[in-house]
């Protein structure tokens, strides 16, 4: 291909007294060059794929000021799991939506652990809802709903972890909601109780 014809054939003949110069091969060993080329290719291949950040798409519920209270509260308490995110990556949760101010919900504490963390709680809840669906207590359209309520002490990573749990556990309906004062009180009460122990 890129080799040059070095045979010298076809050129004019030199006289008998003229010494022939030693023929040097014009071939260059291209192996190191190829090596270098592939090394750089590898480098660029890795950098291109790694510099592409991944994103998580998030859809907030449509907020309309005109919506009346009756239209809003359509969620059944039996499908709902309320998760409160608090400081030091602590996660509080209770069943239901906590709409009854007289009865304090049974607040439990957990975290983003691989074992016995919030994931197991969600899986259990999903199983329970499935069971209720089969028994006919819930309609086929009812889905496990997780209400995420981060408080002022929680961090962004808590929120992302929680949203991630939603996609990990295939929870289709979830919402990020402002925490209520009542729930803040619950967290404080639970913290005080655990501190006293």
């Amino acid at each position, binding site marked *: *291909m*890129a*080799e040059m014809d070095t045979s010298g054939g076809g050129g004019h003949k030199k006289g008998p007294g003229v010494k022939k110069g030693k023929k040097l091969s014009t*071939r260059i*060993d*291209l*192996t190191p*060059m*190829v090596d270098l*080329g*592939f090394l*750089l*290719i590898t480098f*660029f*291949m890795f*950098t*291109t794929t790694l*510099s*592409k*950040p*991944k*994103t*998580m*798409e*998030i*859809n*907030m*519920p*449509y*907020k309309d000021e005109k919506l009346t209270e009756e239209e809003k509260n359509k969620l059944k308490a039996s499908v709902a799991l309320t998760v409160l*995110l608090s400081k030091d990556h602590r996660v509080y949760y209770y069943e239901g939506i906590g709409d009854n101010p007289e009865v304090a919900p049974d607040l439990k504490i957990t975290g983003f652990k*691989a074992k016995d963390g919030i*994931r197991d709680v969600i*899986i259990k809840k*999903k199983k329970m809802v499935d069971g209720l669906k089969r028994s006919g207590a819930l309609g086929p359209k009812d889905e496990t709903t997780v209400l995420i309520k*981060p*408080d*002022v*002490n*929680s*961090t*962004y*990573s*808590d*929120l*992302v*972890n929680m*949203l*991630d749990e939603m*996609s*990990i*556990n*295939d929870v289709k309906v979830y919402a*990020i909601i*402002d925490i209520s004062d009542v729930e803040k009180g619950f967290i404080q009460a639970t913290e005080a109780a655990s501190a006293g122990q």
Partner: protein
Amino acid sequence: MPKAKLPRKSTHIDMTAMCDVAFLLLTFFMLATKFKPEEPVVVKTPSSISDFPLPDENIMLLTVDAKGRIFFSIDNKLKRKALIENVNSERSLNLTDAEMNNFAIGASLGIQFNQLKSYLNLSSDKQAEIGKTASGIPVDTSVLSVNNELAQWVKSARNTNPLLRICIKADGEAAYPHIKKIISTLEGWKIFKFNLITNMRAIPEGTAAYEQKNSVAKAE
């Protein structure tokens, strides 16, 4: 017995073709690589299992660092120019053409409106220096508040480019109230769909998402 004479073949292989291919690929990758744009602050994003890649263009990036400072940027120089012109007229900042051009070629911005003029007069090195100590773009829960400068940026950016996809790149340590303010600002402009930039992490085994992914892989 006479030995069969095999013609001696050279062990040299012509590397030229291989070299050609290697450099062709190299050129391709060099041209296709996009280097990361300069970032004003170091942000350690949390991880998620989401593997949806960030689109290449029409991005509005809101960077939030661990202290909750907000930095704003959009891609595309022409769009940046249009944006600053829009902001300039709406907030009557009296920016000169040179200052606006400076914005168009600049990086992320975390400066209040009243400091913007002096900031854009500086060289890019000085800007980066100030960016490290800047207070970030002020934000509020209501879009109608005059102090909510982020709302102005978002509104103007969407006026200049309605296709903008809004991405929030926040540090995992950033406190939730800061994020909350951004989200309510976006909600105030009726933006309910946006992206959070996260790191990739593996899907834990035995979960619903893991099984889903595997069943899809098997079906294929």
